[in-house]
Structures are given as structure tokens and as C-alpha cells.
């Protein structure tokens, strides 16, 4: 009932929403206009652009799952160390070879739904460095997790989280 009320109110207030929902879009419009031919084009690694984008989204979702699992445990009164260890081990595995996931042409210009910003390809060396920082921090987090010291895990988790954010701030749409 509540949802319905908001939904029916939505069209009437669309005009006001335009004023408030600033700082978004732009990139995605250009993306949707791009031809779908580009999406099925082969990349040098043999994947289509669509496959490449979906593969990296799938891998990063695994990282999200793992991070949330660790975050949930660290918030809990008595963290389950086994859950943390499993999740921490999943991060280096899921992000192996990440530097190669963003070949030329796999940005929003492909027409495929992606939050990757064109700035990735304009600043590739910096992007690669940030990916490297994350992999380094994730490896340290895994080491800390296998060590079992909650305080050390908490610190390493924060550091790794910072490396995720560092990249997302510059190279990911929104958030």
C-alpha cells in the first residue's frame, strides 16, 4: 500500500526530481546509442565485449559477497573466524588477473551496461596501479585472516576496503 502510494506520486513529481537528481547520467546515454555490433566484436583475448564485461562483473560481485561476509562477522559480537577465512581467501582468487579485465573497447562506448568510466582508459597506468594496490592488500588480508587475529583482520580489512574505494571513486559510475 505504501509502495503504491509512492509510485502513483512519482509521475506528478518527476519535474522536481530532475532538480534533485543531479550529478548522474551522461555516460550511459552515449552508451545506449552505441551500436550493438561492438558488443559482439571479438577482443584479442577471444572473448566478446559483452562476455568480458559480464565476466568482470561476476568476479567483482564475488568480491562484494566476500567483503560483506567479513563485514557481517566483524560487526557480530562473536565473529566466526572460519567464515572470515573462507571469504578472505576468495578475494585474491576472484581478482586474479584483474588488470587484464579492461581491454580497450570494453567501456561504456560498447553499449553494454557497465559502470566502468571512460577515465579508466584515459588513465590506464594509474588504474593498473590501483588494481595492484588492491591485490596486494587483499593478499595481506588473506594472510591476516589465516593468522586468526581479529584485530589484525579488522585493520587489513579496512586497508583493503580503502583500495576498493580509491578505484571506485575515480573509475566507477555513481556511488
Amino acid at each position, binding site marked *: 500500500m505504501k509502495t503504491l502510494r509512492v509510485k502513483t506520486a512519482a509521475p506528478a513529481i518527476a519535474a522536481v526530481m530532475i532538480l534533485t537528481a543531479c550529478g548522474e547520467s551522461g555516460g550511459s546515454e552515449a552508451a545506449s546509442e552505441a551500436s550493438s555490433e561492438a558488443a559482439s566484436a571479438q577482443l584479442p583475448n577471444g572473448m566478446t565485449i559483452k562476455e568480458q564485461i559480464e565476466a568482470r562483473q561476476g568476479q567483482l560481485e564475488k568480491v562484494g559477497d566476500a567483503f560483506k561476509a567479513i563485514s557481517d562477522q566483524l560487526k557480530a559480537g562473536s565473529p566466526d573466524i572460519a567464515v572470515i577465512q573462507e571469504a578472505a581467501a576468495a578475494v585474491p582468487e576472484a581478482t586474479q588477473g584483474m588488470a587484464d579485465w579492461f581491454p580497450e573497447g570494453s567501456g561504456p562506448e560498447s553499449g553494454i551496461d557497465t559502470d566502468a568510466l571512460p577515465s579508466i582508459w584515459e588513465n590506464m597506468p594509474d588504474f593498473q596501479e590501483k588494481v595492484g594496490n588492491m591485490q596486494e592488500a587483499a593478499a595481506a588480508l588473506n594472510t591476516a585472516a589465516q593468522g586468526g587475529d581479529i584485530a589484525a583482520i579488522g585493520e587489513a580489512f579496512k586497508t583493503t*576496503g580503502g583500495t576498493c574505494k580509491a578505484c571506485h571513486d575515480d573509475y566507477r559510475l555513481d556511488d
Partner: protein
Amino acid sequence: MTADRAQTLVWDWTIRLFHWLIVLLIPLMWWTAEEGMMDWHRRLGLTMFALILFRLVWGVIGSWTARFVPMIKRLRSVPAYVRGLIACRNGPSFGHSPIGSLAVFALLAALSIQVGTGLFSVDVDGLESGPLAILISFKTGREIADFHELNFNILVALVALHIIAVAIYRFVLKDDLVRPMVTGRRGDVEPVSTVKVRPMALIASVVIVAASLYAIINAG
């Protein structure tokens, strides 16, 4: 209540406190989210949850002008009331006018959805999350967070509408609604019922809110 009609109480102190705390909290919550101050966003969010839940309970057991049932009944006369407004025929209302009742329901719905989705939201890194996000997956938490963001725009639009409406009352219809929301009193209405904070109702409301807060914080 004094015999002096200039002192007719229309809004009890809990309603006024609730209203102005919400006014304070909405921009603060927006700002803490923008700045990524998620510890504060969570704390303020729980405060917001407590306020909204209190208002919902107060709408059932609170003072007369806060109650939902009379407000629902008043919704039927919205069209007639609006025609009256256009013709400048309506006098001041004791409590929420028909269209004011509609506004309260819309605002409370948007606020409830905002707080409710916030409890389950997860950020893009899986680092930050609402206190109940522990119950759901990363993916579901992300979808809820997207809706949390969309609904905020709806909430802002409703607030804008509310402020515009109050301004129209003030400057076009020459009816100051802000002062009564501060003092609780206005001089030009016939009291339909006595507005009073019953101690037992207040205690019951606070107990319900405190128990719910406790349950959420310890959900982990």
C-alpha cells in the same frame, strides 16, 4: 485548556518535536551519506527509525490530532476541500486538513520506506551496511541500496511540495501553519477534541520504540 480561544492547543509537544527533528535529520542524513560518513549515517538513521516508529504508534494511541483514523476519514473530502481552497472558502482546520492528511500519509510512507530500505542497504564495496543487512545477500543489499537512493529523490520531491504548500497557505491564503507547529496553538479554531499527551500512551510508545531499537541493534 484556558477559556481564551487564542490558546487552543492543536499539536501536542511530541508531534512538534517529531516534526522539527525530522526537519533537522533529513539534511543531516543526506550530508553524511554524501560525505561517506557512514558511522554517523547509521546512528542518525537509527534515530530516524525511532522517530518514525514513534509517530506511527502515536498515530494509533496518541493525541487526537495525531491519530490516523480521523485523518483517513478526512481523505474523502479532499476534492471538496481543494475546490474550497481555490474559491478561498475554507477556514482553518483543527488538526490536519483533508489535503494535509494526504500530505502526512505520503511523507510518512516515503520516510518509512527510506528508513526501512536503509536498514538493509549495502554499499558497493560490501564494506558498509545497515544493521539488518546481515540477514540478506550482497546482491539483494545492493538492489535495496539503489532503491534507497531512488526513494530519497521521491522524499525530497514530497518535502519540496510540502514547503510550497505551506508557503501558499501563508502568502496566498493568509494562513500561517508554521507558528502553530512551533507553539502548538492557534487562535482561530474550534477545538473538536482535547489535545493531550496521556502519560500511559507516551510510556507505551517509548517502550515499543526502545524494544524495536534493541532488537535491530542486536540482530547481528
